[in-house]
């Protein structure tokens, strides 16, 4: 399902039929595509697996390729054994030299005499080997999340076996996503794409064989022979490849410069794609990338349906549909725009934070009436005027929504600061580290008057301790002991945020106004069968 404000540019990219051609490398056909017509050629050497057609179905991948092809003639290919290229005998895998020569074959077919190479992840050692072997054909080298020796910087042999075991048993389900982009595991739209990406890029046997083949990679011996100007980019908390890998390359490649960027997701088309594209463009063209001019300041609200597992499929589907319709109505009523939908994640934008939060409160109430629970995140920042908010502001807001508990509206402190005078109330929610941001972000919980003093709270059933979960009962006992949230968190080994959520849930379930009342309740209940 897509939002109703889908930009024509993106839709165009999604359906744009890029012509796929085949280069002959020995007796193997290598599939390639050429995009753009910049004055110099840029060959993208992909990582572990790839599929030329599928790349254009992912927003981040499309964005990366569109950015790179705006200033170059971008040459894309699937390595032998992957994607649209010929399959290889998994019992007789080609050497890195043979695979590297596929780059030359593709360049010859595309008429590229000399090209800049962009090697990402496992594509980096291949690009380095090419640069050392064909210096006259290498204009420059950009290496993203690369390494020279697999076992030293990606995973030791024992972890490799565990990874291969996962790949062999669960290939095609998207199970490997957590190894590459943990920040996207909760993004159902992306994880579904990732599962297809696995299936359409390699068979399970081939995937395991490719993983073993990559494990043999060791190009440390050729680094000194690379003469092309080299840019190294590595995300500081990359979960797949240790950033030390690029620091080592920076020391060993004669003409290299390293830029470390925030973030932990490894694939080059995830995380802050624009930051990576900016660095590559500046490095290859010598000019700072011209920023997209059409950016505006906006308040984003991400609404998700909390706890999707408790209802049966049919009832779930009906309620979900009902809530989606209500979301459209309420967002419109509060002057916002529905910009995108990813499964149970709904993204809307507003001109100011006050409207976004009032809409969030209305959505929370509407969700309760429909019989689902909401969890929401709100943030303010620059977004692109056209298309869904795919940039950093959007991703941060999605992370806030993912952190929000049942019924909560979790917002950045910036939202509260801008909403001063609006009559809205906020409670401090500490600071948390957000992917891609250098500093931990200060958060608040938006509390509407209604939340504190419900005008028409449904009459709770007679409070019974039995309706509390075992964990909630533990928390109630500790409240009765007079312990603070922080002390309870320490004792139960939970985060302060989780304890706060438990307390809120307990008060809601027992229909009690305060911690003191919960303590009193606990004291009343305590007996042989007490909590």
């Amino acid at each position, binding site marked *: 399902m897509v939002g109703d404000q889908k930009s024509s540019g993106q839709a165009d990219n999604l359906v744009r039929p890029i012509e796929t051609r085949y280069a002959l490398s020995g007796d193997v056909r290598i599939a390639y595509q*050429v995009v753009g*017509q*910049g004055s110099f050629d840029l060959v993208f050497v992909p990582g572990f697996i790839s599929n030329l057609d599928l790349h254009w179905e992912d927003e981040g991948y499309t964005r990366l390729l569109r950015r790179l*092809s705006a200033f170059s003639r971008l040459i894309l290919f699937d390595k032998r054994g992957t994607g649209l290229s010929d399959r290889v005998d998994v019992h007789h895998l080609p050497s890195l030299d043979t695979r590297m020569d596929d780059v030359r074959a593709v360049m*010859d077919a*595309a008429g590229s*005499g000399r090209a800049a190479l962009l090697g990402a992840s496992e594509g980096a050692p291949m690009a380095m080997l090419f640069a050392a072997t064909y210096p006259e054909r290498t204009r420059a080298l950009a290496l993203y999340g690369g390494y020279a020796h697999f076992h030293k910087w990606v995973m030791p042999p024992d972890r490799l076996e565990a990874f291969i075991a996962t790949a062999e048993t669960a290939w095609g389900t998207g199970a490997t996503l957590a190894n590459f982009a943990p920040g996207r595991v909760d993004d159902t739209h992306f994880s579904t794409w990732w599962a297809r990406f696995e299936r359409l890029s390699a068979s399970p046997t081939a995937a395991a064989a490719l993983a073993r083949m990559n494990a043999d990679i060791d190009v440390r011996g050729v680094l000194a022979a690379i003469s092309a100007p080299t840019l190294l980019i590595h995300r500081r908390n990359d979960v797949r490849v240790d950033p030390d890998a690029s620091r080592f390359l920076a020391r060993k490649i004669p003409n290299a410069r390293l830029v470390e960027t925030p973030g932990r997701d490894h694939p080059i088309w995830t995380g802050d794609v624009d930051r990576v594209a900016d660095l590559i463009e500046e490095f290859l063209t010598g000019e700072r990338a011209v920023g997209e001019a059409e950016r505006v300041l906006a308040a984003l609200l991400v609404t998700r349906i909390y706890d999707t597992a408790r209802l049966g499929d049919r009832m779930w589907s009906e309620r979900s549909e009902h809530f989606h319709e209500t979301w459209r109505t309420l967002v419109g009523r509060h002057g916002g725009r529905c910009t995108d939908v990813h499964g149970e994640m709904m993204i809307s934008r507003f001109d100011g934070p006050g409207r976004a939060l009032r809409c969030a409160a209305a959505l929370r109430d509407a969700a309760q009436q429909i019989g689902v629970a909401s969890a929401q995140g709100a943030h303010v920042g620059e977004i692109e005027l056209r298309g869904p908010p795919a940039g950093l502001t959007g991703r941060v807001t999605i992370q806030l929504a993912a952190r929000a508990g049942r019924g909560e509206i979790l917002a950045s402190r910036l939202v509260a600061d801008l909403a001063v005078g609006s009559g809205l109330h906020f409670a401090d929610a500490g600071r948390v580290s957000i992917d891609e941001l250098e500093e931990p972000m200060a958060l608040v919980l938006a509390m509407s008057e209604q939340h504190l003093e419900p005008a028409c709270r449904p009459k709770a059933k007679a409070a019974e301790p039995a309706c509390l979960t075992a964990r909630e009962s533990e928390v109630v006992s500790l409240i009765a002991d007079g312990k603070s949230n922080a002390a309870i968190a320490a004792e139960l080994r939970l985060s302060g945020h989780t304890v706060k959520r438990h307390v809120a849930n307990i008060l809601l379930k027992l229909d009690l106004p305060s911690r003191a009342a919960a303590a009193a309740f606990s004291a009343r209940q305590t007996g042989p069968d007490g909590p």
Partner: protein
Amino acid sequence: MLTKTQKVDGAAIKKAIEGRDGKMLSSFYADDALVRVIDRNNPPSKPREIRGRAAITTFWDDICSRAMTHKVDATIADGDSLAFTQACAYPDGTKVFAAAMLELKNGQIARQTVVQAWDE
């Protein structure tokens, strides 16, 4: 420098482009020349700009490193203005077509605007 001896006209440009002679092409430009490229990825409100002879030399070196054919079809000259069309093909059959408008100053190219389209 070749700029003193080689007159910039349609015939010279045709010979240099079709012969993929990057060095010759770069010599046609003034030191502070500006080349603007407009295409689907670089729209008229944000064309790609290549400024100065050094950048223009790299630009032509890159283009001439490609194993492709160029054919300059029509050249029109009018005082200090020069225009031509160019049909190009890569070995895999991909075609590019470009139309260029040039402004000359003191016998050198001061400003050039290229509009191009290609198979993709």
